[in-house]
């Protein structure tokens, strides 16, 4: 009996569980790339965007963004491992995933991803180390001086000792060198971050079989929307974390209970306002760029009217109209833009705008990935995607709502732990 059920379950082809076919579609056509492939460019985009925001301070010296820049860098490090997660969850043979690094087949746009990604991870890690080296040394020295360390403090001492990598010099000259090196790493990091994400765009843009995906604009569109989503997420998290800190300062919990030098509520509020305003300006610039390119692509398709336009028009203008024009452009682009551009902008209004922007970019990824598979290669039929919500097997969990939520929540969990080792909000003098 069990064997029979298993046999029956095995007969459900990958993709069949969430695809509804209409009119004439080829027998093997399903929505093979589902929610995890929506999450993949979304998460890499957040990584790249967060890094670009942090570079604004490190490379271009936008001093006013100092605090949010450090936060973004730590956050982008927390996001990094998560960019890989959706890919692994989506693979039919996840244990063979490492083959991409072992026998890369370089004519494939995915083959170099592992290498670009690792390079980028090294750059972010190096930059973080340079930023936090002084903190590591100071903490390690303080723990060393402590007479009787408990188990936890002994472990912390060992960890921070290791994190210094034996570089204990925190004299002025050494720190200046760190600062310089950090700037160099950040400036290498920007093109690599853009490449990482433009590359994700290339993976889609180079699929010649897919009429919606195939456009050379795809990598550029992806980079712009990546920066938009990354900056928006950093602003949002920054505001939320500052609110939590304000709450703690008011109630005098944690650090505020014992440390008289802890920032006061007014200090927190002032810093927050200024940083959010400047960061949201950058957010708007990138939003304009992203929207322009997306609309250009759409107009170009409508104007040239090649063979695929008939079916694309039906998908874009009729079947997915609400998803594209109402949710993505209306709610996710125009409304937040208005919220930010109308006079009397406040932190609260900007925060609401960032939530909408994040939603808008997610919808853009969704409309590209799922929308690109919404029509048949025969141009004579359509496929509808239904997100599996209640999982009934591993596949509907992995590629369903809960799989996507797992991916979305992980960076915040990671950030919590990384923040313990590399506090994103340090007093000025401890870091660069």
């Amino acid at each position, binding site marked *: 009996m069990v064997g029979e059920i298993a046999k029956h379950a095995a*007969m459900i082809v990958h993709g069949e569980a969430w695809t509804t076919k209409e009119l004439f579609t080829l027998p*093997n056509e399903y929505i093979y790339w589902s929610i995890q492939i929506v999450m993949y460019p979304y998460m890499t985009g957040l990584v790249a965007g967060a890094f670009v925001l942090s570079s604004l301070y490190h490379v271009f010296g936008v001093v006013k963004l100092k605090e949010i820049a450090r936060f973004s860098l730590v956050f982008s490090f927390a996001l990094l491992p998560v960019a890989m997660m959706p890919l692994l969850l989506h693979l039919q043979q996840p244990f063979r995933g490492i*083959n*991409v690094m072992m026998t890369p087949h370089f004519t494939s746009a995915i083959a170099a991803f592992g290498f670009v990604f690792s390079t980028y991870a090294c750059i972010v890690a190096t930059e973080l180390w340079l930023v936090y080296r002084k903190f590591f040394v100071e903490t390690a020295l303080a723990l060393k001086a402590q007479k009787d360390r408990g188990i936890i403090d002994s472990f912390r001492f060992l960890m921070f000792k290791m994190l210094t990598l034996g570089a204990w010099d925190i004299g002025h000259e050494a720190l200046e060198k760190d600062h310089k090196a950090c700037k160099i790493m950040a400036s290498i990091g920007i093109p690599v971050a853009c490449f990482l994400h433009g590359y994700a765009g290339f*993976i889609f843009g180079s699929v010649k079989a897919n009429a919606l995906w195939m456009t050379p604009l795809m990598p550029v569109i992806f980079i712009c929307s990546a920066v938009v989503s990354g900056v928006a997420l950093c602003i949002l998290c920054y505001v939320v974390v500052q609110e939590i800190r304000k709450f703690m300062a008011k109630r005098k919990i944690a650090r505020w209970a014992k440390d008289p030098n802890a920032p006061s509520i007014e200090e927190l509020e002032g810093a927050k306002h200024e940083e959010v305003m400047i960061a949201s300006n950058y957010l708007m610039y990138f939003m304009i760029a992203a929207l322009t390119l997306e609309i250009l692509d759409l107009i170009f398709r409508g104007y040239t009217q090649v063979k695929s336009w008939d079916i694309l028009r039906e998908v874009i203008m009729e079947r997915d109209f609400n998803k594209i024009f109402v949710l993505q452009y209306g709610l996710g682009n125009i409304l937040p833009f208005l919220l930010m551009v109308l006079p009397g902008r406040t932190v609260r209004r900007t925060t609401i705008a960032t939530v909408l922007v994040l939603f808008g970019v997610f919808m853009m990824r969704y409309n590209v990935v799922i929308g690109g598979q919404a029509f048949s290669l025969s141009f004579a039929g359509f496929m509808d995607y239904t997100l599996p919500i209640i999982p009934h097997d591993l596949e509907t969990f992995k590629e369903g709502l809960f799989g996507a939520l797992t991916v979305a929540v992980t960076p915040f969990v990671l950030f919590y732990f990384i923040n313990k080792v590399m506090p994103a909000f340090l007093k000025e003098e401890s870091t660069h």
Partner: protein
Amino acid sequence: MERREFLQKCIMVIVGASVPVSALTLIDPKKVFAENPQIQWAFLVDTNKCVGCGFCVKACKTENDIPFDAHVSRTWVERYVYTKDDKRYVDSPDAALYGFTESRIDLGRGEYKEIDKDNVGKAFFVPKLCNHCSSPACTQVCPVGATYKTDDGVVLVDRTWCIGCGYCIMACPYGARFFHPIAKVADKCTFCYHRLSKGLDSACVNACPFKARRMGNIHDKNDPITQIIMNERVGVLKDEFGTKPQAFYIGLAQEVR
């Protein structure tokens, strides 16, 4: 060591090392060990002869262990019906595994359309399978090189190496690929490579009662299939993608995509 001497030795080492390295590129093991480099398999479909019996699909699924109740197939047959009031209907219920036993058209979502017999302008069947393209988009995009083209022109998948990313499925303009429901890797028509290499016909060619499906060696000018491809008007599917398909069609209508 003098600088001059050092440079001389350097040059000697470089020249010496480059000889075996260049030998590696001169001798391509793939070419040397190819079983039949003089063979290039091609497929010929005569759409005029196909009656939509579905024997080819059955034979293929049986031969290649594709479960009958799995809604995927390495080969399938499409039915095209044009009405006199200028409407076009296409379907392929269950990939034509059980043939076209009903006259109504499958519209998907459990809906069907019965067409008035007097209103039918023209109707025909088109068998489809992997085109084993000369420049395949699917092998290009495989990130691990698990799918490849053999020297005798057949595109294959290495089931032990495929990671199941689905990029090849996305890249194929013909919808010829799918995930095998049990092996959990990309799967596709192999031209029954295991039969070909033993001198047998592929399962679908063998099963076709009307010789609508045939195979031949396009490098052999005397092969009857090559003769037809050379001398008659044949077409290929979706040539705009530049994949150079090796499945040729007699009587191809422009609406067939």
